[in-house]
């Protein structure tokens, strides 16, 4: 009613345009991460409000009401909007936050980075019954009759047969004109996938390194979630030993000590064997570390685990190396050397947040 829907649509269009043009910036900040709940994420949009001449620090001083002696601090509720007059347009003060569907965000990401849609592994494509009534055919039940198309073909026939009289425009649809909506089966990629985020939490991984991992993981999940109907995310952390943790722990845990990467790969393999059989799941292991492994021996163990056990089971294995002050970055070299020319293994190197976009493109660009 009241055409407000049209204004709202225009607003959303502007918002989408803003986010799209600023996507690079969002890609490298943690801004969006904390704000996502369920299927949407609140995107803070600076400067969508129109500027006006306004006073600085309008909220600072003012008049209030209540008990208390001179020098008493105001309670939280009293701050922010204490005065009169000033409060009249106070909503202009706050950064606007807009809810955007994760699905839409994924689409923007895909467009920005030129990501192909995922081609599911093997032929395990389920012709899931996700067809929609977007086809037209010439027979069907009356309840599905497509009035406009029926009328159009009747009109076409009337004109073609020379019976059209502009003075008395009459169109009588006949049996042959009838058109019906029909369902087109749409093959949907296999609907289940699992992502393993494995992170090195040994002493050398600092706050910034984890932040980068966090941002990458958010976008990877967002993208893959748009490609699969059902996405499960498993978080593993390791130093010298590996364990499964929940989302919060994954992002905040800080361990110290040595690093034995094979422990994580082993745990990942165990989980795949027990819970995510490869013929039912699309499997995406991601591993993040600063590239220091405990020993060359363990690296060998990692390589053989990958080659013999993991790679045959997964869509793609990604290794994201995050540069830290302490890490040597040797592990990436070792992997690159061992899997030269194998496009099931993707490795990247991130030193700064700006490079996150490129990393994502490398990880997701193969469409596997």
């Amino acid at each position, binding site marked *: 009613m009241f055409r407000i829907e049209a204004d709202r649509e*225009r607003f959303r269009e502007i918002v989408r345009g803003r986010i799209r043009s600023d996507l690079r910036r969002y890609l490298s900040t943690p801004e969006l991460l904390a704000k996502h709940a369920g299927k949407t994420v609140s995107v803070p949009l600076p400067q969508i409000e129109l500027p*006006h*001449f306004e*006073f600085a620090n309008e909220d600072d001083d003012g008049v209030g009401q209540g008990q208390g002696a001179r020098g008493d*601090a105001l309670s939280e509720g*009293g701050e922010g909007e204490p005065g009169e*007059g000033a409060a*009249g347009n106070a909503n202009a003060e706050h950064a606007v936050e807009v809810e955007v569907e994760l699905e839409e965000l994924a689409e923007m990401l895909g467009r920005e980075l030129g990501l192909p849609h995922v081609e599911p592994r093997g032929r395990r494509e389920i012709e899931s019954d996700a067809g929609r009534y977007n086809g037209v055919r010439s027979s069907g039940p009356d309840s599905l009759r497509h009035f406009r198309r029926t009328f159009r073909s009747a009109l076409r026939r009337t004109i073609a047969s020379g019976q059209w009289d502009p003075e008395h425009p009459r169109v009588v649809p006949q049996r042959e004109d009838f058109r019906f909506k029909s369902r087109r089966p749409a093959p949907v990629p296999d609907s289940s996938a699992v992502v393993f985020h494995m992170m090195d939490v040994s002493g050398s991984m600092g706050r910034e390194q984890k932040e980068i991992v966090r941002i990458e993981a958010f976008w990877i999940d967002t993208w893959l979630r748009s490609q699969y109907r059902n996405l499960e995310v498993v978080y593993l952390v390791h130093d010298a030993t590996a364990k499964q943790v929940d989302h919060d722990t994954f992002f905040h845990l800080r361990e110290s000590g040595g690093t034995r990467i094979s422990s994580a790969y082993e745990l990942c393999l165990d989980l795949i064997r027990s819970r995510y059989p490869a013929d039912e799941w699309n499997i995406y292991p991601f591993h993040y570390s600063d590239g220091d492994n405990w020993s060359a021996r363990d690296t060998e163990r990692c390589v053989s685990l990958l080659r013999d056990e993991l790679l045959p089971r997964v869509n793609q294995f990604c290794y994201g190396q995050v540069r830290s002050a302490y890490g040597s970055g040797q592990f990436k070299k070792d992997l690159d050397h061992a899997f030269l020319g194998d496009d099931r293994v993707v490795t990247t190197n991130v030193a700064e947040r700006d490079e996150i976009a490129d990393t994502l493109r490398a990880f997701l660009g193969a469409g596997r």
Partner: protein
Amino acid sequence: MDGARRSQSSLPPNLRRWAAEIERDARSRGLDFFALDFRWLDAADVNGLAAYGGFPVRAPSWRFGMEYERLSKTHAWGLSRIYELVINTDPVVAYLVRSNSESEQKLVMAHVCGHADFFRHNAWFASTDRGMLDTLAQHAVRVRREIERHGIERVERFLDLCLSLDTLVDPYDELRRSLRKSAAGGAITAPTYDVLGFLAENAPLEDWERELIAQVRAEARYFLPQRLTRIMNEGWASFWHSRILTGGVLDSSEIVDFADCHSGATQQAPGRLNPYKLGIELWRHAEARGEDLFKLRRAHNDASFVDLLLDDEFVAHHALFVHQKNARTGKQEIADRSAAKVRERLLTQLAWGGLPRIELSGVGDGRALELVHRHDGRDLDLQKASDTLQRVATLWKRPVRLATRLEGVAKRLVWSEGTFESVDVTESAPDPA
């Protein structure tokens, strides 16, 4: 009147009866207003209508869409409920939301009577366009036509420029005009506070652009009196709804309901001032002091009203205080309880509708537009001032300069040839602000 009857017939019979009774009661107490046109509204439509400020048809703008989203969100979260939606037109249009209880409807109706009386009799509303429903619908048609001609991007960009300047109109324009007794509609000449009007007449614009600026200005001028009288107007409506309802319109079982609903509208967070609450208390205080309420509601705006009524007794009784940021702790704390200080602070906030006073002093060298911020101790937000000034320059298509003070230093903010600079004004030069 006929139109109003027709609309009101959409109300259920019990509410139609109550509307008639409350209206009669209000008039018997001396309130005087144009015919009331209560419209029945679905809860689902409340946010849309509220985003449009109560007018069913407005020119298309993404800003309404944004407001709508905001309202929908807060409404869904149960943070706020819109009890009343009333607009200043003849007849006065007000909305009753279907999902409200009967006693809430009575409250809204009585409250609306107060607003309607205020709209009709307060001096600041005297020259407002009472046919605004039609005017805004015409504006909408105009904007849609320009969108068809020039495309949405271009029209939207231009309207957004104008809307950034919609605070640059003269709140006292009508008053000045009546004092000067000059004919309305004369050319706008510098110095003037009516920057929008000046630009509409003098900026190098295409005709359709000129037309749209004029529309934005007309809308800004229409809404301005509400900004100048918010405390008084809300207070007046609350003062009277409370009289009318407790004077016999509610039965005893509804009184509790009313108290609940009324306190919901007039409650305030601890330490914080609610304009409804301040307003109603000031009116009660005026009555206790034996003032002629009807005379006050005719002549005053918020600033002069507060100046007149906020005395020692009121400040003490309501425990008002001035709070200030403690530079050391960064926290807001109670700084002063004296009536003089409280009044002074409130008046500063209320003056000029709470906005910075920006005057257009003339056109200088190189056809540069000269603006002056009349500094009253509060600095401008520099970022926003720069952004807004840029928009003035975009419309004016020549350099634009704004004289102001920042942290005690006289400054000139300049937009010229697409670049911004902020220049110190040397002490030897006369202080522009």
